[in-house]
C-alpha cells in the first residue's frame, strides 16, 4: 500500500489469542504492514508454545520524530 512512508512510527497493536487472552504489542516500524509482521514475530518470540492469534489489529501509531513517545497500556480488561 504505502511505500510513501519514510518516517518510523511506534505502533500499538492488540492481539486476541485463541484462548481468549488479549495482548498489547508495541513495535517500531516504518509501515503498517511491517508493524503487523514485526508484532507477530514478537508474539512468537514471547511465547513458548506458538500463540494462536485469533485477531491482530493495529490501533495507534505515533511518529518517533520527537523524544519521549510512548504508550500506557491498560492490562486488566479490554478497553
Amino acid at each position: 500500500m504505502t511505500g510513501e512512508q519514510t518516517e518510523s512510527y511506534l505502533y500499538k497493536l492488540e492481539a486476541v489469542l485463541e484462548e481468549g487472552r488479549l495482548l498489547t504489542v508495541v513495535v517500531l516500524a516504518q509501515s503498517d504492514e511491517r508493524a503487523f509482521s514485526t508484532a507477530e514475530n514478537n508474539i512468537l518470540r514471547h511465547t513458548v508454545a506458538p500463540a494462536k492469534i485469533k485477531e491482530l489489529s493495529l490501533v495507534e501509531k505515533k511518529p518517533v520524530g520527537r523524544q519521549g513517545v510512548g504508550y500506557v497500556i491498560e492490562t486488566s480488561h479490554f478497553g
Partner: protein
Amino acid sequence: MAERKQWKWADDPSLNKMEFTKLEKDGLDVIETIVNTYSKEGFQSIESSDMDRFKWAGVYQQRPKDGHFMMRVRIPGGILNSEQARVLAKIAEDYGRDLVDVTTRQAVQFHWLTVESLADIFDRLASVGLSSFEACGDCPRQIMGNPLAGIDPHEVLDTRPLVAELEKFFLMNREFSNLPRKYKISISANVHNAAHAQINDLAFTPAKKTIAGEEVIGFHVWVGGGLSAKPHLAKKLDVFCRPEEVIKVAEGVTTLFRDFGYRQKRTHARLKFLVADWGAEKFKDELINLVGELETQGEDLLKGWNGGYFYGIHEQQQAGLYYAGLSVPVGRMNAGELVELAHLADEYGDGTIGTCNTQNVLIRNIPQDKVAAFQAEPLIVNRFKLTPNTFVGYAVSCTGTEYCNLAIVETKERMRSLALYLDDTVTLDTPLRIHMIGCPNSCGQRQIADIGLQGALVKTSAGMVEAFDIHVGGTLEEAQFNRKLNARITVDKLGPFLAQLITLYKEDRSEGEQYWRYVERVGLEKIQSQVDSILQTA
C-alpha cells in the same frame, strides 16, 4: 524578528524538546521566514525546527510528506462574509486542488498547498481580514462561538463584539504565543450550548445574576476541557463574569496556563492537567489573585444542548427575518460550491455565512418574502440541504488517511458513504449523531457522539482490513463521553452491523428517545448484548 521574551521557565532544564524550540525562536517568527525565505527557496530549504513552528502560521505537513501542507484558517466565532468566502474559494481553486473543509471547530481547512504559495495566501487572507496564524501550534486557536450570534432567538446577548475583541486581543499577541500546548476558547450566549463549552480549554456560557438589585446578563466560566486520547470535561468555576470582564478573565486564565501550565511533557501539558491538579476552587482563587475580585456564580442559563445543529429555515430575533441551516456532508465542499454559497448569502441574506462545529454552514438574515425562492435554489435542493436525511445530516468525520499522518484508516469518504447506506436502510425520525475518527486523537470529536467510530487495522488472511471500534452514549447535554463496546467491526460489515444495532434501538426506545438517552436508560450491558447477538448471526 521581534525582541525575544525572557520567559520565567526559560532556565528549567526539564522542559520538553519542543519548549527549547519555542525558546530559541518564537513560533510566530516563522511567518516572516516563510514569507522571506521558504516561499522563495522552496520545500528543501525548510529547517526541521522551523517545520515544527509552521503550525503557528496555521500550516501543517499533510500525508504523504512530500512537500504539501494543510492550512487552517480562523473564522472567529464561525461567521464570515461573502467576500471572505470568495477569497477562500479562490485560494482552494488556485492552490488547494479545489478542496474546502469546514472543521469541528468552525475553521476552514485547505489541503495540497505548497510552501511557494504560502506568502500569497497570507496576503490574500489578510486582504479580507482573515488569518491562518495561530490556527495550529501552542497558542490560542480559532475562537469557537455561536454562528447565529446577533440573530439567535435562543441567545441572551450578542457575542459578536466579544468574539471580535478576543480575536483582536489574542491573535499575534506575543504575550501568549508560547503556551505549554494548544489552547481552545469558546464563547456563546446561546442557551443550548452551541459552542460545546465542556470540551474547550476555556469557555464562556450564558448566565445571569442580580447584583446590587440589578439583573446582569453575563457568563459562567469553564476551564480545562478537551478531547484527544485523554478526554476531560471542563470544570465550571464559581465566578460570574460580566460581558465587559470577558477579556480580563480570558487574559487571566491564559496567563495562569502560560505561567503555571506544565512544560515537561507534551502529553501532560494541556490546561486540563493543571485544572485537574489544582481543582476548580484553587484555580478560581489564583484567577482572582491575578485579575481581582469577581462575582460568584449566578443563575445558569444553559438549557440542554443543540449539538451544534441548526437545520432548516428558522425565525430570527428580528421579526420578518430568517436563517437557513444547511447540511454540508462531512464538511467537504469545492470552491465552486463555496462561491455559490457566497452568492446565495448576498442574494438572499445579508452576505454573512455561518460555519458550524458540526462541519455545516448557515445563511443569515433572509427576509420572509425571499425564503421560498431561496429554498428552490439548486445548491439548496441538491447539495446543501435544509432537511438532510437523518444519517447524512448528523455524520461528522475527521480527515483520516487521505491527508493525516497519524490516521490508521480512511474516514471522510467512508463516513459519507456509510451515512448514505444507513439512510437507505433504516428510517429514523430522530437525529442520531455518528462521528468517525481515524486514530485516538479525536479531531472528529468521537467522544461526544451518540455512536463514535474509531478506526483500527485488522490483519486477516486477505491482508490488512480497516475496522472500527464502537463507542456509544456520548452527549454534552448531561455531559458525558461515550463508552467503548467490545466490538471491532471490519468495514465490510460496518454498515449492516450499525443498521441492525440502530434497528434494535428503534424498536425498543420510548417515543422520540435519543440514542444517548436510550443507552443511559438501558445500560451498556444491554447494548453489548445487542452487539453480541448481531455478531453471532453475522
